């Protein structure tokens, strides 16, 4: 078995008395998409900076692409590509000029650069915009140009900090398609996101909360391991459904969503008929009561609850 592309153990970073990252450990295998998933303040950016060799941990260690980020950060930097939030595009240069600039910075030969730029721009649907100034691109296109620049050399490990924030779903799909192409070539991608629905797209992920690792596993196992079950009640009167079920036995939470209520229950098979009966008794209209797969938000909320954190 090959060494993992990224291995972190006990990573810790403190800022002015706040533990931004608290004894974080995980490994990412070569050729996978590994997600750092959590809300603002979970420690995602700090973790990526330490993995990129641009910030020294207070304690712990990490090996990235075979090199230690503390002892040999320069060796790490030459084997990775790191795209921070607000990646530095030159707004008064065109798309092509930005790509050429980064190719020169990374020492990429012209033939390799042209071939790669063509492929990346085609994959991101940006081939028509090569002569446009970067400053005149939409938010989603800027992110895709940033990724193209970060990938103009062939990194072994790609570190991306919230690459899809503010990007619409169509551009996000383009973005993920490019990432999967890279993974097929053997590149390892570590990507952070505050959007729990993006967790779905990672091979493995670390759920982070306030600097600590809640869980680390595949999306399927994280969902399967969630205590309890989720039941969806579709109804034209969601508020009435919530009020009728909030105190019902076995129901731990009742949340109004657009056209219904999202319930977390201890046992779906047992509670679904009870829920139906309760709503009928209270004369609350409902179209459907059914067990559904939990979302990552459900998984996350359950993980925070069992970790003993009350939350704000």
């Amino acid at each position: 078995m090959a060494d993992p592309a990224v291995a972190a153990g006990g990573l810790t970073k403190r800022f002015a008395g706040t533990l931004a990252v608290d004894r974080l450990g995980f490994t990412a295998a070569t050729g996978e998409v590994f997600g750092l998933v959590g809300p603002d303040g979970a420690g995602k950016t700090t973790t990526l900076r330490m993995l990129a060799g641009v910030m020294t941990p207070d304690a712990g260690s990490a090996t990235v692409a075979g090199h230690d980020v503390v002892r040999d950060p320069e060796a790490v930097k030459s084997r990775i590509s790191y795209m921070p939030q607000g990646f530095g595009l030159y707004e008064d240069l065109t798309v092509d000029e930005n790509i050429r600039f980064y190719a020169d910075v990374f020492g990429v030969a012209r033939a390799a650069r042209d071939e790669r730029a063509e492929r990346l721009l085609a994959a991101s649907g940006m081939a028509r915009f090569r002569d446009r100034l970067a400053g005149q691109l939409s938010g989603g296109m800027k992110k895709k140009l940033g990724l193209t620049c970060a990938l103009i050399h062939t990194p072994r490990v790609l570190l991306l900090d919230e690459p899809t924030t503010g990007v619409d779903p169509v551009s996000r799909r383009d973005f993920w398609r490019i990432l999967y192409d890279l993974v097929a070539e053997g590149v390892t991608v570590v990507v952070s996101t505050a959007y729990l629905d993006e967790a779905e797209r990672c091979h493995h992920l670390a759920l982070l909360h306030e600097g600590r690792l809640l869980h680390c596993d595949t999306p399927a196992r994280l969902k399967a391991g969630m205590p309890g079950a989720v039941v969806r009640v579709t109804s034209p009167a969601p508020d009435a459904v919530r009020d009728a079920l909030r105190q019902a036995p076995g129901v731990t939470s009742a949340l109004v969503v657009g056209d219904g209520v999202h319930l977390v229950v201890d046992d779906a098979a047992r509670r679904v008929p009870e829920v139906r009966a309760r709503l009928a008794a209270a004369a609350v209209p409902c179209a459907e009561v059914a067990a559904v797969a939990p979302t990552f938000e459900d998984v996350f909320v359950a993980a925070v609850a069992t970790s003993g954190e009350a939350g704000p």
Partner: protein
Amino acid sequence: MSDAAVVVEDLVKRFGTFTAVDRVSFDARRGEVLGFLGPNGAGKSTIIRILCALLRPTSGRVRVAGLDVTRAPEAVRARIGYMSQRFSLYDDLTAIENLRLFGGLYAVPAGDLDARIRWAVEMGGLSGREHELVGTLAGGWKQRLALGCAVLHRPPILFLDEPTSGVDPLSRRQFWDLIHHMAASGVTVFVSTHYMDEAEYCNRLALIDRGRLVALGTPGELRSAPLGGTLLLVECERLGEALAVLAQTPGVREAAVFGDALHVMVPDAETALRELPGALAAHGLRCERIEAIAPTLEDVFVHRVGTAP
């Protein structure tokens, strides 16, 4: 009179030769949470600015809280609340000071201000933190304070721009619970977002693409409306390679990775179910499962809007 809090008829907005909003019509009921979805540059923000009476329509009719936005822009602005994703709070003021400031900006009658502030503090669960500097509050508190500031003048219409992006899930749920309570009391809420998990909280969704309204309905209606094809879930080995193969396979309109499987959109499910496993096998990829599934909101979004960047 009808229940409509907002009525938009044949709205057009042009900037020079560019048509940002193209004959859009819809209405929003009193107490409804209506989501606006669409790609960057689709015209969502333009529509919202017009509804807020910050931009004049080129043509068409827009009534907000019973008032025409062109004829009575000031009165419209007094009846709306607005909260942006980057909460416009003053970090170096306390929670109470922010509320007082916004109360003044929104011209809340002096006699009502104290009671309104107490209400906002209680609603946001901010009791005990009123005198803390906003800069030291965690995201969830700030967000509820920003909401309090936006509704201090009791607007019947509220606009939220990606209100819970990046906020931890527990705070997000508390926030949406507040929003649904507010809607139940008669406030009409507009939510503009790129995130399908926020869209799920809306009663109805308006999908905007290139200035036009391309779909309007409950999340369930949008998910069950025909997309001109069938969505297949494909589980197989080496997803990246499989994705590349399927993207080149005739009869596949779109393929995307979803976790440890692919979502593949095909016009003809029967043929695809029969032929795709073979297409994968020809590249040495074994297909472990293939079946038709219900689309997610994101699938709906991607297939209902154009694919141009």
